[in-house]
């Protein structure tokens, strides 16, 4: 088969090219190339530190809330406020981020991934009376099929009635995720790119009308997650069983933990959080997280080699396009010198490994339904399943948080902008561990560095030549048809890549 180049990889966020070398029907080499650099870390320099919260959201319109939270935590710590954030503000931040991520996982499964498995062409055979499906049938009959063709042809395995139902769910999910964004907007003004989260707290008061409206939209989303999303993931995983083995990857997983559950603790890494912080591997044993072990390599990235191997606190962003051997605008974050996968699988596995009883029951029961061992989590379908369970874990927590809000109590703590300082903000974005670091001098941003989930997952080789997690997941995969390389795009999309985030 030789070389397979997929450029652009679509139904992800941003600009990605995947190049593989195939020998004897198996991928021997894989290269992941991010093809858009904007230079956020350069644009942030010299600005008022408070503006980082607004500007970093624009790193990505799919994941703005998580950058908003990471930036606010970063600025809280730089301004000396990390232990002073009012409970109302902590909870509203959790609700804004939670609602955003619950809709985002739904978007990923239905609108970014499902067309790899679901053949909407089968709706042409639909004979029922559902008006939505009949409108799709009319659309198919008219014959102008963009954006659903062209596509890879061949490996669609679901029976016609399941394809029809899945198409109806694809359309229903568009409405459901829109409602998720209405929940975000309730407390945060608008979305994408919202204004409600600021250093020191949040801007809006938790009035009873907002709490009630949010609650019943949440119920709508929970109903969809429980009765449509999770059953659909299990059904597709049951038919595409080989994808419970394909795309296992590096099997090192890292989570920063997310959704603060306590007040007054200045140390982010030791704060009680819904998702736990830590690392784990194939043995699913929990290891403590040590932030000082994070470095970013650039030998194979289009940046000057002098900045390689630094901790993000001392990170630099100095473009050098065309550098010998380099092939991507992504840097290569590593933990303790090794490639680590981040994302829903990582935070679910770390929380599972920590012994959390709710998570343990949820994961064990899903695996039992698939008659699959825990090792099946390290796979394409394992990632989809973990994402769906992560979604339920967040959604089920939010109703309780809502009722902890105290309408007449503060949501914001006043502060003065410090002359100098440094900070760190860590959270779990939809796509995994997200970190922001800031250095302030003369009340301006002297340095701002972001290490973003897809920077970890879609990174190129590190200075030691070890491929990134997504590259490792592709290498070794059998390719059945080089003209329709389903295996590669299914592996890539299982990571839910966000390239605008990754490069920024």
């Amino acid at each position: 088969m030789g070389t397979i180049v997929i450029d652009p990889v679509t139904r992800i966020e941003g600009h990605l090219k995947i190049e593989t070398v195939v020998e004897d029907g198996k991928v021997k080499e894989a290269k992941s190339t991010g093809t858009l650099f904007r230079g956020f870390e350069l644009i942030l320099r010299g600005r008022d530190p408070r503006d980082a919260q607004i500007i970093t959201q624009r790193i990505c319109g799919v994941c703005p809330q998580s950058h908003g939270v990471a930036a606010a935590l970063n600025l809280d710590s730089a301004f000396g406020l990390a232990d002073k954030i009012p409970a109302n503000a902590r909870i509203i931040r959790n609700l804004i981020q939670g609602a955003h991520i619950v809709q985002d996982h739904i978007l990923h499964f239905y609108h970014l991934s499902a067309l790899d498995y679901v053949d909407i062409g089968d709706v042409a055979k639909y004979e029922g009376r559902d008006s939505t499906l009949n409108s799709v049938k009319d659309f198919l009959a008219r014959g102008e099929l963009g954006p659903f063709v062209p596509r890879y042809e061949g490996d669609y395995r679901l029976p016609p009635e399941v394809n029809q139902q899945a198409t109806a769910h694809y359309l229903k999910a568009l409405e459901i995720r829109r409602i998720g964004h209405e929940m975000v907007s309730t407390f945060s003004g608008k979305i994408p790119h919202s204004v409600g989260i600021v250093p020191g707290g949040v801007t809006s008061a938790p009035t009873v009308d907002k709490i009630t409206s949010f609650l019943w939209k949440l119920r709508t989303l929970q109903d969809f997650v429980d009765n449509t999303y999770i059953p659909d993931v299990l059904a597709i995983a049951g038919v595409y069983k080989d994808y419970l083995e394909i795309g296992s990857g590096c099997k090192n997983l890292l989570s920063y933990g997310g959704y603060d559950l306590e007040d007054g603790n200045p140390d982010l890494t030791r704060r009680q959080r819904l998702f736990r912080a830590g690392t784990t591997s194939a043995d699913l044993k929990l290891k403590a997280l040590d932030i000082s072990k994070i470095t970013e390599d650039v030998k194979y990235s289009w940046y000057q080699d002098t900045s390689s191997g630094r901790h993000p606190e001392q990170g630099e962003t100095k473009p050098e396009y065309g550098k010998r051997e380099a092939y991507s605008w992504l840097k290569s974050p590593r933990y303790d010198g090794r490639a680590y996968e981040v994302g829903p699988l990582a935070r679910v596995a770390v929380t599972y490994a920590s012994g959390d009883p709710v998570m343990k029951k949820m994961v064990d029961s899903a695996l039992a339904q698939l008659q699959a061992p825990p090792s099946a989590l390290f796979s394409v379908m394992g990632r989809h399943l973990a994402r769906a369970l992560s979604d339920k874990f967040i959604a089920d927590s939010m109703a309780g948080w809502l009722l902890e809000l105290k309408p007449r109590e503060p949501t914001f703590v006043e502060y003065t902008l410090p002359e100098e300082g440094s900070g760190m903000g860590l959270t779990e974005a939809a796509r995994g561990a997200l970190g922001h670091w800031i250095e302030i001098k003369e009340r301006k941003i002297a340095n701002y560095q972001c290490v973003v989930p897809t920077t970890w997952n879609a990174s190129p080789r590190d200075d030691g030549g070890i491929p990134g997690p997504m590259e490792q997941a592709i290498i070794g995969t059998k390719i059945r048809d080089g003209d329709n390389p389903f295996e590669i795009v299914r592996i890539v999309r299982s990571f839910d890549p966000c390239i605008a985030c990754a490069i920024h």
Partner: protein
Amino acid sequence: MIKEIPVIWLQMSACTGCTISLLNSASPTIKNLLIDQVIPGTHLNLRFHPTVMAGAGAPVIEIMEDTAREKSGAYLLVAEGAIPTSEEAVFGAIGERDGKPVEMKDRVTDLARHALAILAVGTCAAFGGIPGATPNPTRCLSVRQFLEAQGITTPIVNIPGCPPHPDWFAGTVASLILNGLPGADELDDNLRPHLFYGKLIHENCPRRAYFDEGKFAKKFGDEGCLYELGCKGPITYADCPLRLWNNGTNWCVGAGAPCQGCTQPEFPDLVAPLYEKLVDVELPVIGAYWLPGKEEK
């Protein structure tokens, strides 16, 4: 016979936020826009959209190039994002030709020349936005700046906002279908439709009475006008306070936060610091403002 309007949606130096905002369209829904006859008798045939389309790789690039050739003068080009023009590096590429990356500036040149019209969606495409902010590391230009320099005269409508409200996009498209290209009297100097960008935020703000009375919030959560917390409503043209966001749920000032001025060409450099009061406006004359480097209007 149903009229099919081919649409190519190009993502350049952007964040996909404009696309996600369009997914939030409530009436018409995104399903109405993609599948149904959005206006009876007309269907938008979305042939290329990186976030939505089923295909990947060379076949989708082929569709994009074929559409430009076969539907010359008849397709709509939607441009999301600014255009990196730096000669120092290939900062932005989409697909390949003969094994080499094709730069965004070359893609947009090829596609813009023969389009029926160009919708520059979002503040990056309309004005340069955040990728074009100081020090503008990749020399980003707006679609209008870039195409004017290339001598390409295809009509442009700017639909700024970071991101734009989905109604602004859907309404502009519906207007194109029903009434054809907008006349000069329907757009402002920044090529924004008056229909959506005709009034200042300040003119329709529910906190306007506080401003007129001189009652200003000093910190988040206070009652009062947000002017002293950095609100850019007095210089920002958009109908957010009337239309509201996310299916009528809320808007920035509604959440107790100042308007960031995100539909303006000044965003972000000339409206920064975002949480500092505007350099004094002659109060309370609507529409009058002064910013560094800008004449009084």
